[in-house]
């Protein structure tokens, strides 16, 4: 069962890069470029992991995250926030709002993959590990 990741990012080139990297890892990658309709999209797509940019047209990533943490169906959704502003304040804000990880652009591809792997929910990772373990047992 493939992991589904949703990228909310308005820079199409960045979106394409991440999509390529994560697809190579075997993940199901979806993209969305507008902040205003992001929550709706997230709920509909119901990803295992969310990669959320801060600076988005229509609505900021912070506002979206706050909404997500307020909804029962997305309260526990693992979220990686990306920001190009490079301010420590953004990192603090993101973590305070409930982001599971925060990365500053530009990032290294391997670091992105590692971080996302760490965020894989326990049951999803158990599924994968369980599959392997089951095979072993």
């Amino acid at each position, binding site marked *: 069962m493939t992991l589904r990741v949703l990228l909310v990012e308005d820079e199409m080139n960045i979106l394409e890069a991440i999509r390529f990297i994560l697809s190579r890892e075997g993940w199901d990658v979806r993209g969305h470029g507008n902040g205003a309709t992001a929550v709706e999209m997230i709920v509909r797509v119901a990803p295992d992991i969310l990669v959320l940019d801060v*600076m988005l047209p229509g609505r900021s990533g912070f506002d979206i995250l706050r909404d997500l943490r307020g909804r029962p169906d997305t309260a526990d959704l693992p979220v990686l926030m990306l920001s190009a502003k490079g301010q420590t304040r953004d990192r603090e804000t993101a973590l305070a709002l409930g982001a599971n990880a925060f990365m500053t652009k*530009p990032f290294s591809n391997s670091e992105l993959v590692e971080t996302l792997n760490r965020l894989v929910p326990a049951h999803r990772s158990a599924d994968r590990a369980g599959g392997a373990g089951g095979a072993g047992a």
Partner: protein
Amino acid sequence: MLSFNGLVAVCVVYVAGLFAIAFLAERGAAHGRARWLNSPVTYTLSLSIYTTAWTYYGAVGSAARSGLEFMTIYLGPTLVFVGWFWLLRKIVRIGRAQRITSIADMISSRYGKSGGLAALVTVLAVIGTTPYIALQLQSVTLAFGVYARPGAFGAPDPDYTAVWVAGGLALFTIIFGTRSLDANERHPGLVSAIALEAIVKLMALLAVGVFVVWGVAAGPADILARIEASPIAQWNGDGARWLGLTVLSGAAILSLPRMFQVLVVENQDERHLATASWAFPLYLLLMSVFVVPIAVVGLAELPGGNPDLFVLTLPLQMGQGGLALLAFLGGFSAATSMVIVAALALSTMISNHIIVPIWMAAKRGGGAMSGDMRQVALFARRIAIIGILALGLIYYRLSGGAEALASMGLIAFLGVAQVLPALLGGMMWRGATRVGAAAGISVGFAIWAWMLLLPNVGAAGLFPGLVAEGPFGIGWLRPGTPFGLAETDPLLTTMVLSLALNLFCFILGSLLSFPSPLERLMGAQFVNVYDHSPTPAAWRGSVGTADDLLVMASRILGTTRAGRLFSEAAAAQGRDDHLPEPTPDFLELLERELAGSVGAATAHAMVGQITGGASVSVRDLLAVADETAHMMEYSSQLEQKSAELTETAARLREANRKLTELSVQKDSFLSQVSHELRTPMTSIRSFSEILMQADTLEPEARARFSRIIHDESQRLTRLLDDLLDLSVLESGRVSLNRQPVLLSEVIDRAVHATSALAEGRRLAIIRDRATEEIEIVTDADRLVQVFINLIANAQKYCVAEHPELRIEVRRGVDRVDLEFADNGEGIPARQESLIFEKFARLDSGSGVPGAGLGLAISREIMSRIGGGLAYVPGRRGAVFRVALPAPARDAA
């Protein structure tokens, strides 16, 4: 009989006693203890300086020579005190209310503080008083002479006696008259000494009288019989002369400088005057009751003797050494008290109205009577006292003859009486003016001097030629009898003539001249003094006064400072209490302290108000107004400064707010720049890593990723270019290359440049080339840059199905406007103000990235080349207006 040396010793002891009394009184007054000083009796007794040695000895002489004529000298004052009490009261009230220091001050104050008038009155007073002082010196010398029989041991030179007496009196007056400058010019020590002398002279005269009636004659009946038999009984009074002399002596009590001093200046309580109104006439009656008996007995017992000395020679002749000594001391008292007070009054006038004004003029400006000035004034007074006594002495030595001096008394009366019309007129008639007063006094004074003074002084041998033949030999202008005026009674003739002309000139001058505002004000204050000054408060004792002073001082200095000042002063005076005695020293200190806060004049007025019961005079008010004006000016300067400070503070706050805002903007800008730089960097890095690691990448993907890296690199470069461009433009270091150029060409270049950029959707640009044929002088490259930005924005943001941009050129009087209007959705109203901000990102919903720096740079360029760039709100699409400055001409 007492030896001459014994007499001198008695005199010295007597004078020492006076010193002691004066000293004790001064100290008592300073400590507020000496209640007896502040009694109507003391006041009344001090008035008795009216009866000088001239009346003490001379009344008997006059009676012996002219019968009851001497009575007029007593009658005049009695009538004034009894009949004109209201007038006296008014003078005293004005004097206290205005803090008048002398008769000259009174007149000059009434006529608008005229310095000239004050000096004139002062000169008049000095001339009128000098013979009088000479007279006193003469009487004392004569009395000494009686004791010094020719050939006796230690026979005195009369001249030296006079010198000693004059010197002693000068010393006494200086010590008790000029100790310090009292705010109210009062001298308690001096007044108590002359009060004592008044008692001595009354007692002496009464004692001699009693001795004469019951000791020499056989009682009142015998005396009456003797009077009947004497020539005095045959004396037939000249009615006119009687009336004249009565009026003259009545005038004298009002206008003699020394009388003014004791009557007004030394007055401590207005109510004392009520007592004096009956007590003083009583005193005069007692002084006169034995005059005729002594004269009659003297004529009988001492035929050929000098009647002027009967008071002294009768007891001596009868072997009554003790009584004679008392009589001598009485005469001595009469002479000394008059000289002391006269010298004091004159010295005040000379110092205040002649020396100090001259000194101030010499010093140019000067200040109020304080510090340095006080010392000058005190010194001037001391010099003046010495000068006055020296003048009296000189006059005495020069005139020599006893007869000449005796007649000078009345002449001097008439001289000083010349101020009467101005004095009384000023108190009753508001229309009286300075010109009238000066004219009246001058004319009266001139007539008096010419007809009475000069002949009498001349007769004494000073100007024999002038007196005998007239000036320049013009006989009809001869002094004494000008115009052939009858010589029957020069005194009466001169009196009627001088006072009548004086009054005439006073009235005429007043009617013909206009009073100054100050004169008008003072006129009202004098004439309506009862409306302007409160009834003087009752004597409340020193503690009350000190209390009041403390209350006042606390208001001005603050409770702490005032309390400390008072406690320290009390401690310095050796009192346990926290309230000091209001001594002159303390009052001066207090005044200085207050002056630091409210100004000298105000401080003086306030302290005077409490201690003297004097109301605030117009002069004070003017000085206070001056100070207030200064303070208001100062305070308005402060206000201005404070306003400036407030303004500066506001500007600083504003600057600070702007700086904070700028700092926030800078942070925000840096954050934006970071974002704009990091975003392409992110793509570049990611794709670079992909390209580096994935050898198996398909050629198409490889080419595509390389393409993205290339594009993002270019985006980075553009961004850096823009940042540098903006930085140069904002710093103002941009150099413009202005050239004449056709507007159409500029637009052509911009359109051409943007057509290369256009991808996908094609933006239709609609122009009217005919309107664009305008030659402008500008930096064409920069203007192209602006137009490119506007066209590119339309390409990027116009969401219409068939996007088009309409460029319209409009010519104004002194400018050219270009409108770039697209047919898109425009910019939401709430974000119109944001579009020119750097990296503004609009929530257009179109998913187009932020505008970056384009509009910010464009607007900066337009302001550099002298035009403007604005968003035109309210249209359907997005509309920008470019304003160009126009020295615009039509293209040829």
